[in-house]
């Protein structure tokens, strides 16, 4: 079970003055059950890339395989793919439109042609998975808080029972607590539900904390693809392309420069604390 991109190119507005290569020769394989972070500055191709994963954008070159099958072959069940690979867009709460939260979340399964009862069952299940309490089912989506709206929008995708959840900056504009709650919920779905998660983020701290693997996009190409430790070791190169390492990584580099015997491949606060205590001879 995997998603595989083979030499994918995407040419934007071909034949016009706006023609631009948005993706260049992307080769990427994501296995079922992985938690992958995608980082890159605005315009680096992240959003274009993720829209290839469920066939929303068709590559102008190369192929995309879902579970070994070429999704561009004739007669490929594209609808099925779109429910298996759920895409949560940026600011998804702007796409809520129904009278009640429950109806809104039913929209996906209803489109899958399921009977009303089954739709509601799946919607309720999805709301629970997204961490939205039952009492909100009959609320108008517009009466929810920012964080709750975003949960409702994520539930709308979960109701289609995807195997892969792709999220484009799911925490943009949320307060710190709301951000942690959403990310913890996503992490729970990944851990407990075996869901593959692909997270596009501008927060280096967040991808360092949650992702097993980080893909760095730059100018439509993959610049790095590795564990957080491997990727953030290139912090100077990352800065050149508008990114950075988590703040703790910089602290470790500074400490080492000043003669403290610490590792510099540290990407989370917990690791940093352990490493500093050990270096000071006050290990656990």
């Amino acid at each position: 079970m995997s998603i595989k991109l083979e030499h994918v190119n995407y040419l934007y507005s071909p034949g016009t003055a706006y023609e631009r290569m948005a993706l260049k020769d992307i080769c990427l394989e994501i296995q079922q059950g992985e938690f992958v972070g995608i980082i890159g500055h605005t315009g680096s191709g992240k959003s274009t890339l993720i829209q290839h994963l469920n066939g929303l954008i068709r590559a102008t070159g190369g192929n995309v395989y879902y579970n070994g099958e070429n999704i561009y072959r004739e007669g490929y069940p594209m609808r099925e793919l779109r429910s298996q690979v759920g895409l949560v867009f940026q600011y998804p709460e702007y796409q809520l439109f129904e009278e009640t939260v429950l109806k809104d979340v039913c929209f996906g399964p209803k489109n899958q042609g399921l009977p009303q009862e089954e739709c509601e069952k799946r919607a309720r299940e999805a709301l629970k998975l997204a961490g939205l309490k039952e009492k909100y089912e009959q609320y108008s989506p517009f009466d929810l808080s920012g964080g709750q709206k975003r949960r409702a929008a994520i539930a709308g995708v979960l109701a289609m029972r995807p195997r892969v959840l792709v999220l484009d900056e799911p925490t943009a504009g949320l307060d710190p607590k709301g951000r942690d709650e959403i990310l913890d919920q996503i992490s729970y779905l990944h851990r407990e539900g075996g869901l593959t998660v692909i997270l596009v983020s501008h927060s280096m701290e967040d991808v360092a904390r949650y992702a097993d693997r980080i893909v760095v996009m730059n100018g439509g190409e993959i610049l790095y693809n590795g564990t957080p430790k491997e990727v953030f070791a290139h912090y100077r190169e990352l800065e050149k392309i508008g990114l950075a390492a988590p703040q703790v990584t910089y602290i470790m580099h500074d400490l080492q420069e000043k003669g403290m015997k610490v590792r510099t491949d540290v990407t989370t606060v917990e690791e940093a604390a352990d490493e500093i205590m050990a270096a000071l001879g006050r290990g656990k």
Partner: protein
Amino acid sequence: MESMVHTENLVFEYEKQDEENHVIGRSRAIDEVNIDIREGQFVAILGHNGSGKSTLAKHLNAILLPTQGTVWVNGQNTRQPEKLWNVRQSAGMVFQNPDNQIIGTVVEEDVGFGPENLGVETDRIWERVEESLRAVGMIEYRYHSPNKLSGGQKQRVAIAGVIAMRPKCIVLDEPTAMLDPVGRREVLRTVEELRRQEKVTVILITHYMEEVIDADRVFVMDHGRVVMEGTPREIFSQVELLKRYRLDVPQVTILADKLRKRGLPIPAGILKKEELVELLCRLN
């Protein structure tokens, strides 16, 4: 120092309406707020989604008028209709989404829109446009189309549009929420420059704790009230309390806090990585 913004028992209530537009209740978004911001200060306002930050900001240039209490901006009561334009010219606003506040088809036209509306003569408008674009480091883009700019560049254009009106105070409502790390840095550096070079009073509303460590004063809002007020160090010393208000502290502050709890002699309220690195090196 003169008072730039002063509020006395400021209250703002929304009317809740049912589907037939009958008032069914009132909800208090701002609850007895008393703040005083001096000319030339850099003040940050923190608070979770729905805490009343943006509602407060909208009172500072009379987009909203108080339900009770009074707001003075640059000595002018915002409630007096004849002062409206003076108030709006004193306090310029920059919002979260750059795409919603750029209207011109060419960068310089967009920046000229504000002064033109104020009735500034044409020659003077062009002078101001040039000055403002220089101040935000965007002069080389004056003939470009705004929609081809990055998020950070667009926000800088939006800021130029505000400073072209020569405000004494600039209110930024989550100006970096939609930006990548480089965009964020560009905007913050611009704001810092304005403060130092042009002596503009800056009021920054944000969810990013790292952005407020250089502020002169920080206000924390919760349920429409100002619940904490102090220097960044005073505020960020209270990690637990901030968490209760759904906020956070910078990563370096969390790390310092963890190390202190594990027995290292580190004071509360560490804000910069340089401080922590120096302390740790002394312990080494």
